[in-house]
């Protein structure tokens, strides 16, 4: 039985379609990533699966329980960490944790093993108010509170947004460890580089999944010729490449431009000399391996 099964779910706000007939399944113990930009419908999907919102059409089950009719039972079995820090800022670290434990009829001591790794760095601040913690600490506390009742399914809505790169890496390390304990994890993120850390990912755009597969499958199915291009005048380069005959697409990726080439006769060295003739200096053109972001861009076209 699937841990989560979603069947043609739709939801609109007034006349905006947030979700359009979304379907997918998550296997027990899987780390499933929902990857997409802001406004793609990620939070709406989470709110439906955590029983905070009722879908307009379609059905969904979590641990075989219907999100509409069995919402009470689901709430006992899942943990949810909203995108926004939603703990009581005027209560201490310790009070927040034990408060959420008691709401589920359990105690911190009973499930301490599960949160130990995450909560340990917080122990020395346990009498500090939650509002006075740093961003990374807040996130650790929020995760501890979402885990303290030993949920079998964990929903994390953009847990790494606004978190520094080191803490982000830490956080994914924690998720890996939780997965080992058999917890099913659904995590959303706008950061494409985090996608490869998931078992399977769904690329979401405007309320629809474009593709659901393992990150390797998605990268493996990328058929385009992909090059990175760099020069000293990047914005002029972008404008030029976008109108260049034989280049299908051109996007900015950090300090390089990624281009897909339709003209198979074109060679990196040829393109380089053409660009140098057009007045560019320090030109660099080389073939690269596709990333999830390249795949997303291709699918989103």
């Amino acid at each position, binding site marked *: 039985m699937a841990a989560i099964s979603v069947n043609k779910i739709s939801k609109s706000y007034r006349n905006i379609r947030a979700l359009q007939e979304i379907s997918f399944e998550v296997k027990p113990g899987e780390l499933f990533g929902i990857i997409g930009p802001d406004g793609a419908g990620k939070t709406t999907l989470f709110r439906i699966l955590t029983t905070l919102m009722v879908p307009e059409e379609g059905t969904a089950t979590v641990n075989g329980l219907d999100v509409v009719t069995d919402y*009470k039972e689901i*709430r006992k079995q899942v943990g949810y960490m909203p995108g926004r820090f*939603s*703990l009581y800022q005027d209560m201490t670290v310790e009070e927040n944790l034990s408060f959420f434990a008691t*709401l589920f*009829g359990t105690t911190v001591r009973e499930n301490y093993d599960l949160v130990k790794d995450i909560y340990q760095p917080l122990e020395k601040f346990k009498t500090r108010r939650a509002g006075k913690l740093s961003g990374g600490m807040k996130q650790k506390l929020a995760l501890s509170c979402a885990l303290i009742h030993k949920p079998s399914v964990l929903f994390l809505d953009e847990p790494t947004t606004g978190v520094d790169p080191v803490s982000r890496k830490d956080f994914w390390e924690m998720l890996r460890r939780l997965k080992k304990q058999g917890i099913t994890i659904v995590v959303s993120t706008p950061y494409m580089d985090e996608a490869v850390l998931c078992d399977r990912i769904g690329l979401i755009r405007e309320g629809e999944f474009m593709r659901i597969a393992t990150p390797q499958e998605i990268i493996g199915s990328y058929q385009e010729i992909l090059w990175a291009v760099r020069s000293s005048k990047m914005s002029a380069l972008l404008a030029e490449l976008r109108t260049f005959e034989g280049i299908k697409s051109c996007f900015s990726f950090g300090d390089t431009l990624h281009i897909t080439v339709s003209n198979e006769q074109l060679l990196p060295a040829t393109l380089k000399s053409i660009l140098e003739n057009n007045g560019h200096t320090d030109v660099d053109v080389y073939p690269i391996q596709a990333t999830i972001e390249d795949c997303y861009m291709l699918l989103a076209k």
Partner: protein
Amino acid sequence: MSTLKFLLEKEFKQFFRNPFLPGTLVFMPIMIILIMPFAATMDVRNINVAFVLSEQSPLTNRLIQKISSSEYFNLVEVTSSPKEALSLMEKGSADMILEVPVGFERKLTREGKGDLMLSINAVNGAKGGIGTSYISTLLNDFVLEIRDDLAPVVISSATPVIRVVPRYLFNPSLSYRTYMVPALITILLTLLCSFLPALNIVSEKEAGTIEQINVTPVSKFTFIIAKLLPYWIMGFIVFSIAMILACVVWGLIPVGNVATIYLLAIIYVFAMSGFGLVISNYSATMQQAMFVIFFFIIVLMMMSGLFTPFRSMPLWAQYITAFNPLRYLIEAMRMVFLKGSGIQDIARNLFALIGFALFFLLWAVKSYKKSN
């Protein structure tokens, strides 16, 4: 049940950690019972009177004496020039000009009548009106006083004189304070028991913490009860403190049964808590909720007969007050406090409040479901 206990524990913890709320809780009854009655007074005192006398006589001297010795009037000027008196009023140092015309005493002693001219600054209508009635009473008194002196000359002993001696029931000293305090106490209940929990719920919405609670097995009903209960408890403690203060400071002991007062208060708190919940259900932000609450506080207070008797409002406005729960509470509180009315006497008010309670609580339950 144990969930409720933990939720309550959390609410109290948060309340007492708040930098403002506990202090306000202590300050509010003190402010309302000790200071407000001085501010909310309709007694008009210190009316400044200027006299315009064209001639001095023993009778006019006696009149001046009579008026200036009253605690309500201050004598500012005795002049012979009406112009000067008027300029005093324009400057604001005189509220009232009493002009005694030439030949007043002669006319009074010969013909038995005399004319006086009274000019009143009516910018403040209430002060003008009340001042007029005070001075009329004073002048009538004056006439009765001098009647005996004049009687042998003018008034035949057969002239009937009606002397009205008022006996003020329920509030013998006509104290406005006695009238205001029972009503002011109700404001405490309104603010503490209905609007404060409503704002608290909205603040959880705004902070997003309500989401985190909603994904736990805590039922909505338990959550709301945990929100209301602390404020009900604190509200009634403050309400009781206010009644004790009223008794100690103003000597205002309810004539009626204290249990009746609490019964009224409890039903009113149910009604207004429901109303507060309705507001919290429709508001997403504190700003929204605050603004709506502010508006309703003004309407509730102004249309309740708190300051001005609603019977003197135009009829259409009186119909509006019929939808104001505070009106029924204030009316009944004054009846129980001052007249010692029992349950039967205030049955109409009780039923109205029960109606409001049912209406708002049902609406609150309905709108809560809708918002999810």
